[in-house]
């Protein structure tokens, strides 16, 4: 109970800071007024409505999606290094969107965003095939290296395409490292819907994923069909990752940091863990974004860089704790 209160508090603070902090600092009362009694002549109200609110929504979508996707992937593979960013699923979505823009020319963001889903699906199938399959015996290290290689390939291709189109540095950065600064131009409401479907699917599958983690044979004995559950979980991961990349670009390490924290908060109950992951993911992403806006102000550090700076020490910490023989 105390953990739940703490989590809700952190989440509330993260949301408040996203709306309040910036060039024009807003008080709680001003935020409230901007939302319920919007005054177009009030500059603070306009800032909140047109810049910070889309940013908040994008942060909620991307943060919750990536947090839950990370927890699902880690529960499925029992690999503490599984993360949609590290395994190249993010880059797959990013590459598909950029490639779509190259082939079909500049068209609306919503249509291009639809390409994120086949991109993410192909990348996750590729990385699990190359990393040794979805079964529990997947080597920790092998999967992480396969993801690194896939990331390197896809991000090199993204760089080549973006440079070939002579896009601005801002566009390049968005599709390589992720940012919330273009939130108002992204298809937020559609992707919010996709995220909700993805999280719902994960919650529905949670007990069966847990059964699967007892081992395939035992799970079959309990009446579950491993292949179906894996497929369903991959579909959920694809939906959530695709939505996150569509609104915020490829943000790595969030799905790595969130699951161990969620487990610490609610113990080993996957449904609760998933709910905690959604809140934690959104909170960490929003706090990292706010920190990125403040740390080198007036310049803005993209949130993808902030999550990488926070997440890499976590990665090293997990890598150190893997047992020497844990590769198999």
């Amino acid at each position, binding site marked *: 109970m105390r953990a739940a209160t703490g989590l809700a508090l952190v989440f509330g603070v993260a949301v408040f800071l996203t709306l309040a902090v910036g060039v024009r600092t807003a008080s709680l009362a001003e935020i409230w007024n901007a939302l319920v009694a919007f005054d177009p002549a009030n500059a603070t109200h306009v800032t909140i409505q047109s810049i910070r609110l889309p940013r908040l929504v994008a942060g909620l979508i991307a943060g919750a999606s990536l947090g839950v996707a990370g927890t699902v992937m880690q529960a499925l593979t029992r690999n503490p290094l599984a993360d949609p960013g590290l395994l190249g699923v993010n880059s797959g979505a990013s590459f598909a969107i950029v490639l779509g823009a190259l082939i079909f020319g500049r068209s609306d963001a919503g249509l291009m965003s639809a390409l994120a889903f086949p991109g993410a699906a192909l990348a996750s199938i590729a990385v699990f095939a190359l990393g040794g399959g979805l079964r529990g015996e997947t080597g920790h290290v092998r999967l992480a290296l396969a993801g690194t290689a896939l990331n390197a390939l896809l991000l090199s291709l993204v760089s*080549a395409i973006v440079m070939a189109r002579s896009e601005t540095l*801002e566009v390049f950065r968005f599709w390589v490292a992720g940012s919330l600064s273009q939130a108002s131009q992204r298809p937020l409401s559609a992707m919010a819907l996709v995220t909700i479907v993805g999280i719902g699917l994960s919650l529905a599958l949670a007990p069966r994923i847990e059964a699967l983690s007892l081992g395939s044979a035992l799970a079959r004995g309990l009446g579950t069909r491993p292949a179906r559950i894996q497929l369903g979980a991959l579909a959920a991961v694809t939906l959530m990752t695709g939505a996150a990349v569509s609104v915020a670009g490829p943000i790595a390490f969030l799905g790595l940091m969130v699951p161990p924290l969620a487990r610490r908060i609610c113990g080993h109950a996957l449904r609760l863990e998933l709910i905690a992951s959604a809140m934690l993911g959104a909170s960490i992403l929003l706090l990292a974004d706010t920190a990125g806006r403040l740390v080198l102000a007036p310049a803005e550090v993209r949130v993808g860089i902030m999550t990488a700076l926070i997440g890499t020490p976590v990665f090293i910490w997990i890598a150190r704790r893997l047992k020497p023989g844990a590769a198999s």
Partner: protein
Amino acid sequence: MTRSIILAAVLLFAILLSLMIGQVMLSPATLWAGLSTGQGPAALTIRVLRGPGIATAVGAGAVLGLSGTIFQILLRNPLAAPDVMGFTSGAGLAVIFGVMAGLALPTPVLAALGGSAAAIVVAVLSLRRDGSQTTITLILVGLGVGFFTAAAGSFILTRLPPQEAAEAQRWLSGSLAARNWGHVAQVFGVGAVLTLVLVIQSRSLALLELGDDLAKGLGLRADRAKWGLSATGVLLAATGVAVAGPVPFVALMAGPLGARVTRARHPAARLAAAAVTGATITVLADLAARASIPGLQLPVGVMTGIFGAPYLLWLLAREIETGDL
């Protein structure tokens, strides 16, 4: 022997091809005229436009190949390369930081400092509590340090104005744009000195390849030799980064590919093959980066990424079959 000649011939062919192809195409005859007489349009292209970039590619590729092979032999793992373990991105970060902070240190010194710092951090962080160290942990921690330095590089780029940031971003992905003969002299000069040091150490490397116990039994002070070889390896990688940026995957690929073509077994022969192969890979990647999209020069690192990542994936797929990982 014939296979070594083939390897060298491929490099020569790659260099000539690279000299001919570009925005202005040169025919073999024009190229020959330019090379032999030093006059005419071809001579200008060689001396000013393409020559320095290609020569830098040869030098940087060679030192990166040597560096990768040293670590692959020392750690007995084809994945243990300075680009996988974050040493090259550490060197790159130090160069960017030094330039931004206005430090009055030459680029190779900055790269050497950054590369060494990254290597020390990786070595310390991968130590277990009982003092032991496994290659797998070393590689994973190295990957993590590489991710961190890459993010830190992007972080400090945020402070630059867009134009300079774009330039620095290109350099950070590995770039041979706007090289001059000064860069060539630098990479070949420093590279030659380090290669000499490596030649002196090559007997230790050959002994260490047999295993620590056997090497000690044969009278080698194994720990000291390992530190010496690692230092040479880090400095070789830093020399490449100083002129070409942290080009990914060249150090990883050069050794195994070179050994495959020449069927070399002995460490000294593998090192020589890796140097030639690294140079060939970099020259060809640079050519692809210049010629694949008309009117646009991609950073060479984008091309080594596109070629190198499938190699890493293939390596993993093969290791799954043989059960080595």
